[in-house]
């Protein structure tokens, strides 16, 4: 290593940083070659070191193999695994490095010798393939399908060593992993996100605990009641005269109440969709199923008990799959939690932001309750403006809330290896009237 090399590295790092910050805006700008070190008196071909060996005519020699193995074992962070094609899992025999804090799961497999179940660390195909491609995992292909107890990873007893190409050929197509999904997985993983399967491929795969049932139950119970109440108090008597102004009992004699009276069309995602589309879902499963859960890189994450995910991702092939229909989206949203409305942007130190986000669900509840009550009470005369029940929480910008939507799913449309992400927000215009 000499000066030239280190300089080269530092340049590439700064450019990487820039790239991160400006994201995908200016990908086209190439390296500025004039920034290369100028004070070198005469062009020098960098010295990269001696080759340990060159290919000999009669194949490798014992000494060469020894030197190569020594060099390999010097890289401490390489891990070892055995790939079992029939299980579609890679059994990690030696785990090194930080990858396993967010990858892999423990599974119970019967032991060959004793017959009783034993826990061991296993990787999904995409996880194993990603690590192999990264050079952080050395993988053997199991020669016999029954896992054996001895973890003599340094010998060929486990099977044949796998190349990255072979890993691609073997692992894509196993356990619902398509090439599109792998592209999405590895792209997000390389950006630092923690990516897990949304639907557990086996019972031992840890998934986030389901959202509190009580709240959901309450919502399902309340919505028909609300609908009925709305229907009852709808003031329209004739369909030919929807808006009636009366001086008695404050009937529509200001703009807010007039607009409110005009809001009598069924709207929003709570209205049932009567859709009966051509192909029934039984004969052709929809490609629109949440496949991955996404956690932000610095989110607190425990592998054994993952928190609710930050995003849910659907992966589709952009060439063969059209955009989702409303029925497909409604089906996806059924399984997703409601995201609280966004707080106004504030420049605060990181600790303060953390605190505010942890407080957020409570604030959200506080916002909703008086809102709902106000809606109910406003239909009765003399109560058109109920006193505020609680001190006003942080004002939410309605435009931001509408832009975000109540629920969000991310669709990764993969067009021949190019992944473009779109977020599909469940719109809530009717919850944020402008008047």
């Amino acid at each position, binding site marked *: 290593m000499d000066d030239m090399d280190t300089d080269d590295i530092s340049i590439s790092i700064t450019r990487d940083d820039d790239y991160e910050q400006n994201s995908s805006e200016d990908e086209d700008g190439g390296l500025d070659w004039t920034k290369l070190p100028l004070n070198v008196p005469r062009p020098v071909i960098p010295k990269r070191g001696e080759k340990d060996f060159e290919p000999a005519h009669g194949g490798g020699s014992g000494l060469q193999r020894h030197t190569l193995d020594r060099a390999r074992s010097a890289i401490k962070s390489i891990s070892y695994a055995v790939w079992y094609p029939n299980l579609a899992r890679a059994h990690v025999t030696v785990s090194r490095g930080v990858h396993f804090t967010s990858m892999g799961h423990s599974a119970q497999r019967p032991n060959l010798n004793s017959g009783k179940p034993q826990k061991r660390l296993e990787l999904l195909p995409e996880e194993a393939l990603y690590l192999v491609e990264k050079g952080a995992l050395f993988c053997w292909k199991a020669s016999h399908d029954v896992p054996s107890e001895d973890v003599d990873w340094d010998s060929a007893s486990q099977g044949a060593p796998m190349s990255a190409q072979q890993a691609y050929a073997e692992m894509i197509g196993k356990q619902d992993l398509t090439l599109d999904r792998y592209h999405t997985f590895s792209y997000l993983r390389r950006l630092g*996100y923690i990516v897990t399967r949304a639907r557990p491929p086996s019972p031992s795969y840890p998934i986030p605990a389901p959202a509190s049932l009580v709240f959901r139950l309450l919502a399902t119970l309340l919505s028909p009641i609300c609908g009925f109440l709305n229907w009852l108090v709808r003031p329209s008597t004739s369909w030919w005269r929807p808006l009636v102004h009366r001086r008695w009992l404050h009937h529509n004699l200001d703009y807010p109440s007039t607009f409110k009276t*005009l809001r009598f069309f069924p709207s929003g995602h709570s*209205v049932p969709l*009567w859709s*009966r589309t051509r192909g029934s879902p039984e004969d052709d499963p929809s490609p629109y199923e949440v496949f991955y859960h996404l956690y*932000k890189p610095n989110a607190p994450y425990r592998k054994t008990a993952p928190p609710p995910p930050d995003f849910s991702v659907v992966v589709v092939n952009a060439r063969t799959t059209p955009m989702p229909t409303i029925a497909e989206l409604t089906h996806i949203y059924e399984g997703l939690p409601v995201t609280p409305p966004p707080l106004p942007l504030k420049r605060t130190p990181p600790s303060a932001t953390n605190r505010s986000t942890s407080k957020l669900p409570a604030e959200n509840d506080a916002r909703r309750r008086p809102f709902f009550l106000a809606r109910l009470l406003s239909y009765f005369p*003399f109560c058109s403006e109920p006193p505020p029940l609680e001190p006003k929480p942080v004002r939410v910008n309605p435009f931001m809330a509408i832009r975000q939507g109540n629920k969000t799913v991310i669709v990764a449309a993969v067009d021949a290896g190019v992944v473009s992400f*779109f977020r599909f927000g469940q*719109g809530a215009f009717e919850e944020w009237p402008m008047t």
Partner: protein
Amino acid sequence: MSSVNQSQSRGNSSQKKGGRKRNENNVIYANPLPITFSRVENRFTVTALGIFGISPARLLKPQCKGTFDPITRSVWITDPKDRAILWRRGFFGKGNLSRSEPSWLVRQTNIRTAVGRQTTSEEVTAKRRAERKQFKLDRARGIAAAAAEAESAFAEGRIISAEETKALIPSAATWKPSPSTQNVTLSFLEQYQGAADLDAEPLEDMEHMQLTFSEAFFLTWALDCLSIRRPNALEPMTLPEIWIAFQTTHLPPHLQAYSSQESILRPDNPFLLNYFFFHHYRSLGWVVKNGFAVVLIPVYEDARDAESSPFSLSNSEPFTWQWLSTINRVNSQVQKTLVLSYVTIPALSRVSLTELTSPACFERYSIREIIIRRFVPARMRD
């Protein structure tokens, strides 16, 4: 020195003018709907009436007049007073010779008279475009000059750094229109002048305002402040007549000839879908205009209804991802968010003919939105 002072004072005065302008606009466009409410100022009266549950406000409902025009599928408003009411209170309609607000007469007057001009939005845009064009010309000239200078300096053996060259090229952040640009703008207007000089007769307003069927039906049905006549008819149309007429115009010509009322009524008539969409957002306080940002997508509850339909509804087939990328790019260029608005069409088996003869059928429809934004994982990491 003096130029700096001048520009400062000009800046101040324009700021004041801007504030005054905003206040003026707040007065002109104070009402979100054509109907208005008069307020009683006396506090005592308000309280006294409030005890008895009587509202102190009184309703003022304008009675605008429009003409039904089936060929352009619009309702024409010709009375300038009605035009002003409908535009200023809720931004209804569009001038047929203007971009939005009917301003043809003002623009024509502006061409004829140099003094006391009232700037219209079209002129503001034209001026901005002329300035932008001028800026691009200036910049191109600057770049060429800088390159020539650098080249000649190089011939002398000097090298001008990129930073020095940059200083010579006008940037969009600092460039100010020079007086010559104003001339460009004026000359842009003057191209009409020659024709205008020929007739010195007083100008007649050639423009009318067009309301879409959705706007017209909202004003007639929901707010009751517009009456619509057929051309050459004396009596205004009744609401059931309007209901049928607006739907008939969307039929293909061979079916329009029958127009035996009920036989043509179908729940997937484009008028019904457009009106449902329009009314929903209007009732939430939005102003609805044609554009690209909110896409109405009709959804048949029963897919078989689509096959028997005489209408070929746009956007009812599934979209490709290419379409999404295209339209999303168009919208993000103008800082808009793409919204897909799904209007469900009740199945023919679920909606009765009697329901279709009145707006009662709207109870069977529903509307919901999907908001689409790009997700850039590299930007969302924390």
